[in-house]
């Protein structure tokens, strides 16, 4: 069933980020008005949607007022000044509660800002609050949040993807024009795909990880979500760039992705070589997803692109490698939640030892999926098993990167569906971890290789179960490391040319529903 949450209301919330920024710059709306409109929207619908873990109305209005003040004083404003944003709760925000969707951090108020948070503040972007997510970003449905499940605004019975499901739902439901997500194995791209918005996982090292609560350090990468490719690129430009606080941050400036998005909007891909990855399709993919993808490839061909099929033979091992590497790193990263310096402490009755209190706290504070992954990782790193599991998985990583390298000698970008499925129903897959893990089949290779990939809406499809509801499908565009601009250019061209817009156009003002 449709929710009604995705229909235009005629309010300022219908505007995309570029339009909001223009309205503020032109004096047609103040940042405070824009912010208040979004806060009102959240107040009206988030009881159903449940995208936010924490709404910081006071902080948002103060930040908006500061932008208006600077505007009145004639100071130059950045391209997203005054634009509201939803922040995934895995990003540390000074003075604003940060939980990573976990009970173990309930009530924690960080004493510092992530580099992303600081850059967003400096750009005058207005953070509305913190969005729900799978606990510590482990999941593909946001059902693993310790607090509640977020719903998909296309159908409230369905999941909004994950782990950045609060961010994707908020943007898709017009609670915010922009959001920050993080992607370890697909956690930006898959939520974007199943909620009909744009989401980009930057090249590993393009966006600082300082202040990102770590899940899997060698894979985690924060990135932008928006309703248009240009909006997404504008946010990318704000958060990307070298950070001396992150040793894995790339020390050169990244490509101009905003220029690439504008260039792409001219809908001309002549001379571009597009590779369709043979291994990312076929059996196990929903037929509606494959049909939408095939149609999207035809659109690219129609834009002048040369489309070829390429084989990446090691991609089929990506799932196995990922579900060794990510749990291994997370078992170590999450060891710091020990009831000593911050967060939850359970069972400290004066008789129990520290070890007992630690174990009781971690039992009470972590959900089942987190515990499962900690145990898998602990096992995979154990002496005697390290080489067979973690060591081998890292070799698979090398092989997958090699597949990309050789594919990119023949084409400029690779394309695939973003997810094998459209949004599934809440509760449908929670009992079977492996059934949940296959959500990431298409997104894992780029995560393991550290290469950039974007998901752009490419149509609607039913899930094949007999439910006629047509749900968003995402087209994934993958590029070589550091060539994020290619993702944006191709996505923008596709966006300009796609026959079936997946988003409603803003309509005339009406009373908000």
């Amino acid at each position: 069933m449709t929710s009604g949450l995705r229909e235009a209301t005629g309010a300022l919330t219908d505007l995309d980020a570029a339009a909001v920024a223009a309205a503020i710059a032109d004096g047609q709306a103040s940042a405070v008005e824009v912010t208040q409109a979004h806060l009102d929207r959240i107040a009206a619908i988030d009881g159903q949607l449940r995208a936010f873990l924490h709404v910081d109305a006071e902080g948002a209005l103060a930040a908006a007022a500061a932008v208006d003040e600077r505007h009145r004083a004639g100071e130059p404003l950045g391209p997203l000044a005054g634009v509201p944003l939803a922040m995934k709760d895995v990003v540390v925000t000074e003075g604003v509660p940060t939980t990573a969707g976990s009970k173990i951090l309930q009530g924690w108020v960080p004493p510092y800002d992530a580099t992303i948070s600081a850059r967003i503040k400096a750009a005058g972007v207005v953070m509305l609050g913190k969005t729900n997510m799978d606990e510590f970003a482990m999941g593909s449905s946001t059902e693993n949040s310790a607090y509640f499940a977020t719903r998909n605004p296309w159908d409230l019975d369905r999941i909004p993807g994950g782990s950045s499901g609060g961010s994707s739902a908020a943007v898709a439901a017009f609670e915010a024009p922009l959001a920050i997500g993080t992607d370890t194995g697909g956690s930006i791209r898959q939520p974007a795909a199943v909620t009909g918005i744009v989401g980009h996982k930057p090249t590993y090292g393009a966006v600082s990880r300082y202040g990102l609560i770590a899940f899997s350090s060698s894979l985690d990468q924060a990135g932008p979500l928006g309703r248009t490719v240009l909006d997404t690129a504008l946010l990318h430009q704000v958060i990307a760039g070298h950070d001396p606080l992150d040793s894995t941050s790339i020390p050169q400036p990244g490509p101009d992705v905003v220029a690439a998005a504008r260039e792409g909007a001219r809908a001309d891909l002549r001379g571009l070589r597009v590779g369709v990855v043979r291994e990312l399709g076929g059996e196990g993919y929903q037929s509606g997803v494959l049909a939408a993808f095939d149609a999207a490839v035809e659109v690219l061909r129609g834009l002048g692109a040369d489309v070829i099929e390429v084989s990446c033979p090691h991609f089929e091992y990506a799932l196995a490698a990922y579900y060794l590497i990510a749990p291994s790193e997370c078992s170590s990263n999450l060891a710091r939640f020990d009831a000593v310096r911050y967060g939850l402490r359970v069972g400290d009755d004066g008789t129990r030892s520290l070890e007992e209190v630690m174990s009781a706290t971690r039992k009470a504070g972590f959900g089942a999926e987190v515990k499962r992954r900690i145990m898998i990782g602990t096992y995979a790193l154990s002496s005697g098993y390290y080489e067979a599991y973690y060591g081998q998985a890292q070799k698979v990583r090398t092989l997958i990167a090699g597949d990309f390298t050789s594919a990119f000698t023949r084409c400029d970008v690779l394309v695939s569906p973003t997810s094998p499925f459209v949004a599934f129903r809440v509760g449908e897959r929670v009992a079977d971890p492996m059934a949940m893990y296959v959500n990431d089949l298409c997104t894992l290779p780029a995560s393991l290789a550290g290469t950039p990939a974007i998901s752009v809406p490419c149509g609607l499809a039913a899930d094949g179960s007999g439910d006629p509801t047509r749900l968003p499908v995402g087209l994934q565009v993958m590029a070589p490391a550091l060539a994020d601009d290619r993702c944006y250019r191709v996505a923008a061209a596709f966006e300009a040319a796609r026959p079936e817009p997946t988003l409603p156009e803003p309509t005339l003002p009406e009373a908000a529903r």
Partner: protein
Amino acid sequence: MSAYDELLTRYQPVIGLETHVELGTASKMFCGCSTEFGAPPNTHTCPVCLGLPGALPVANADAIESTIRIGLALNCTIASWCRFARKNYFYPDMPKNFQTSQYDEPLCVDGYLDVEVNGALRRIGIERVHLEEDTGKNTHVGGATGRIHGADYSLVDFNRAGIPLVEIVTRPVPGLGAEAPAVARAYVAELRDILRTLGVSDVRMEQGSLRCDVNTSLAPVGATQWGTRTETKNVNSLRSVERAVRSEMLRQATLLDAGTRIVQETRHFSEATGDTRPGRSKEEATDYRYFPEPDLVPMAPDPAWVEALRVALPELPAARRARVRTELDLSPEDLLAVSNAGVTDLVLATVDAGAPAGEARNWWLGYLAQQANGRDVEAADLGVEPAQVARLIALVADGTLSAALARQAVDGVLETGADMDTVVAERGLAVVSDSGTLTEAADKAIAGNPDVAEKVRGGKLPAVGVLVGAVMKATRGQADAATVRQILLERLGAG
């Protein structure tokens, strides 16, 4: 025969040492917090060294350079590429519950250090030198005397957490026999001197900036396999290193004699009793689950840079001692005396500043050693620089100061901290050599002691000593006694 000598007739020891050195960098290993010792609790902490969610490490360039310099000083090969690793285990003084360390890819490997014991050189193989981070510090409240066992609870201060720590691991050293404890001590002493010479650490064992773990095992004489070793922690002075090895040898011999197997375990050394006690044994073996630290990229020291560091190393203690032998014109007995007193460097520096070796030896083993003893400090910490001593020796040599005045000058330097020339000038410490002044004083002495003067005139020359004393007194000791004697004899017509 002592129990110790007796055990050596049946058992042969093998020792090994693991030494942790806190580097003297200004900031911590992976963040900008200060490393200053003794700050109020938890005032040198930040998101990184507290392991707050989201924080990331960035390696301290000076710590890496210092580690490489230590490796070079210990004749190690420097890795061309290596990574940090995470050592995973839970302990409340470790903020992330893993220690960022190095595992199978240390920065420096395969070196050695020669130490001299009883005139013979012993080569200690260095297996590895690697870089890691220190932990915080627990204090235990309640129970018996602040020890961990029986405490009600503990308090954690993270100021020390994340201070760069270098671990230096020797290869097992067999074949030392009765000298094993002395060699262990000499190794740590030599290592300490090297680290001090390199300027990479303040190497204060009492403050914990140099900490030792000592591995000891015994095997029957003639056995081809080594015995089971124990690791003794908490060995925090040179004397303790020697005592710990010796007491562990005695303890193990007693067990082996009784047919008891040695358990591989961690033991703690007690300064009070001089023996070792078992650490609390763990219920299960720890599995550290090492893996490459994904938050830090590999280190790949440029060979040209490493070579430049090697060339720029200061003169190390052993080379300096060799130079002492060739450059200090001292008898073997004097060299040994200088060495035993721990003032070789001071004597050599004094010689380098222009003093004759014999004079330098005399001062550092004589008056300066007395002053250091009286103040209960090392001669090096007395507050008189070798260059000052060389200046002092020069002032005596040119007759400006007598021996007595020179001692007064040293006292002045110790009291005021001023340099030698300033003290000499301000206190008017100079031999009175003006013959007019001395003649006047001599005549007064003769006039005041007519009987004595008459004896001298009469040929009883030794009696002149009384008159010399009177003149010296009149000139407040600032005259040269020989000169005064000469003048007196001339005035009395007895010269």
